[in-house]
């Protein structure tokens, strides 16, 4: 599922959240000295004075933010005579299917940008290395980040990813449509009552206000958020059993599906139709990824606003994912390369705000609280969601299981099955898949 998600050109923003807090000290480790050959530890990314290394970096930033990314890498290269980073960009979908083959044949990258929910899979499969020493040297700890993002970089209590950003689902509202229906375009609904009241008003003016997409983009992610708002979870704490047919999950799903029955959404909404309808003023509300901000900014004829998701259930929650930097395990370890890679990750942390400008919420607290970041109005509007973001769990091999979850919702939203039936069937299948994963990854 995530491959699918990431294949989207629009999911491009990269906000680097490492922050500029790390102090730079010149505690050189001489090239070829014994400290170098001691392996990945080195000095954890503060400095690199060894012989020149060429580093390959893979990412999936195929859109406009790819250019920002490349420009920053260029700047890094010009400032570091002995480290040359070359950027290789794939569509996320290709990226995740190419990576295992490339790594096992020795053609993989040195540094890889990876989504939080892929970390466990690649850590369990031995593709990426532990980064505890980087975090330690850079003096990064949970307090510097939102705890959810920071913990997401862990697998089996070891750190595999340095979080850069997070991209949550946000609540987009079409101001022109709201105005036409007599709603205050500056006061988007924030609670369940306000939300249904607004939908009722919109219906009176002939607008189906909130189109429920049956697909992962974005209906599935909307349901994912609501399920957590109702207090449910997708899996139990050990990720041994699927729990997305619990009573809260069924209630959340029913609430969403009922919007179709009540005429607030048409049936059979196609992929992207919810968003296209939003842009063309056919509906008023769209729950969509933070990555749409840059697209909407380009659409000058749309009057829109973005806010955290309204609280429909008993608590706040929003679907979110996060980009992380990882260091790829090589067939023959090269301590110089590893040290250089860590310096690169560290350097990018100094430029974290530049990434935020790319349209994602930085994971790093100091940057989120800076006045420059607050100037990025739209992106900043979604920053509060970081505190209650529902990130996918850290368990290897969840791809197919997540697909099962989204398919179950698809059947419910298309009216092929009742919410209860669809989720029950999905859970039965997901449990078999989880069991397969346990056998494969041995946890």
């Amino acid at each position: 599922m995530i491959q699918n998600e990431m294949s989207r050109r629009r999911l491009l923003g990269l906000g680097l959240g490492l922050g500029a807090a790390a102090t730079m000290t010149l505690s050189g480790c001489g090239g070829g000295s014994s400290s170098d050959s001691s392996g990945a530890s080195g000095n954890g990314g503060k400095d690199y004075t060894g012989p020149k290394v060429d580093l390959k970096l893979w990412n999936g930033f195929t859109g406009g933010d790819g250019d920002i990314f490349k420009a920053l890498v260029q700047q890094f290269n010009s400032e570091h005579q002995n480290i040359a980073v070359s950027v290789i960009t794939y569509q996320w979908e290709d990226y995740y299917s190419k990576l295992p083959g490339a790594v096992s044949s020795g053609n993989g990258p040195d540094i890889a940008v990876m989504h939080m929910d892929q970390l466990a899979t690649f850590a369990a499969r031995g593709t990426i290395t532990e980064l505890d020493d980087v975090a330690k040297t850079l003096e990064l700890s949970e307090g510097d980040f939102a705890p959810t993002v920071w913990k997401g970089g862990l697998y089996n209590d070891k750190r595999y990813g340095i979080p850069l950003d997070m991209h949550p689902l946000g609540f987009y509202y079409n101001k022109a449509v709201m105005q036409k229906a007599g709603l205050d375009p500056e006061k988007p609904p924030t609670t369940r009552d306000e939300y249904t009241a607004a939908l009722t008003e919109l219906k009176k003016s002939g607008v189906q206000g909130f189109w429920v997409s049956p697909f992962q983009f974005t209906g599935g992610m909307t349901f994912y958020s609501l399920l957590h708002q109702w207090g449910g979870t997708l899996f139990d704490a050990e990720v041994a059993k699927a729990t997305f047919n619990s009573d809260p999950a069924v209630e959340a799903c029913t609430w969403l599906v009922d919007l179709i029955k009540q005429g607030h959404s048409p049936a059979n909404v196609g992929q992207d139709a919810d968003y296209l309808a939003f842009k063309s003023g056919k509906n008023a509300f769209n729950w969509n990824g933070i990555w749409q901000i840059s697209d909407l900014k380009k659409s000058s004829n749309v009057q829109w606003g973005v806010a955290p998701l309204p609280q429909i259930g008993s608590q706040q929650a929003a679907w979110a994912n996060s980009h992380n930097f990882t260091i790829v395990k090589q067939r023959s370890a090269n301590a110089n390369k590893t040290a250089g890679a860590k310096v690169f990750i560290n350097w990018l942390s100094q430029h974290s705000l530049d990434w935020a400008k790319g349209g994602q919420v930085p994971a790093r607290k100091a940057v989120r609280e800076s006045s420059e970041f607050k100037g990025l109005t739209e992106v900043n509007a979604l920053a509060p969601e970081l505190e209650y973001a529902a990130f996918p769990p850290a368990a290897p091999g969840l791809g197919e299981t997540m697909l099962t979850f989204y398919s179950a919702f698809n059947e419910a939203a298309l009216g092929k099955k009742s919410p209860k039936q669809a989720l029950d069937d999905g859970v039965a299948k997901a449990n078999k898949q989880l069991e397969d994963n346990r056998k494969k990854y041995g946890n």
Partner: protein
Amino acid sequence: MADVIEAGAARENAPPPAAPTRRRGATERGNRTTPYLFLAPYLILFGVFGLAPILFGVWISLHQWDLQLPNRPFVGLGNYRDLFSSDSAIYGDWWSSVRATGTFTLFSVPLLVVIPLGLALLLNRSFPGRTFFRAAFFAPYVLGVAVIGLLWRFLLDANLGLVNRLLGVVGLPSDTPWVTDVPWAWISLVGVTVWWTCGFNAVIYLAGLQDIPAELYEAAKVDGAGAWDRFRHVTIPGLRPVMLFVFTTTILASANVFGQAFLITQGAPGEQTRTVVWRIVDEGLRDYDAGRAAAMSVFFALMLAVVSVVNFRLFRYRED
């Protein structure tokens, strides 16, 4: 076969009265190696990129195979057993994808065999603008699947698409869920594929039609055969080898359907339009379970081999 060639070659090379045994021996030796030398480039390529991967794939299918996990335990026919055991996690998905591919193939192949034939018959006549129409019908084929997939996804969208809009204008139901419900999704997928690829088969048929000697039609006319009789007794037999080719390649192409469903219906509703190739890709490249993906591929290839053999038999039977 070999004897015939040998004898022929010997006859040509050997001067009639000369001692036949020695001569014959020499040419035989030449004959033995020459064909293989000519075949060598292909055989090497086939061996490296065809045969070896196939054998390796079969080998992989007997293991729980992940490129990066250190141990790849031998599981014998376990992966194949999983395809047939209702307890396994993939059983339901697998057979649902077989059903999806089967449905698509069953409905697309007849249309892709018959419509291009009609098209070719029309385009084979001489009329003004013939070249334009030939190009027009072939044109969609040059587009990539991503282009036609995205194009039709928007055209067929139930609520925003042009198709439903136009249907509404002429007074037909304008809320048909073309891409989110069956059977509409199948109608969409088959329809789009026919529109997309029928030009290719039509071109093949056209080439075949032009190979049928005009005298045969004239002779049939002289014998008093009408248009239908000429079609049945001249065109169809004349096209038989071409039809065998079209049938076989179309079945194989339809059985490999992936991009259209991936882009247009995205598997909806649920996973009902998720096809076999899509399932194999997911298994191998999303779950990195190459063993299962290989087992699926081998089993699927065997199914297609059986279909192809039956197909060849049918055409040979007609020839008798």
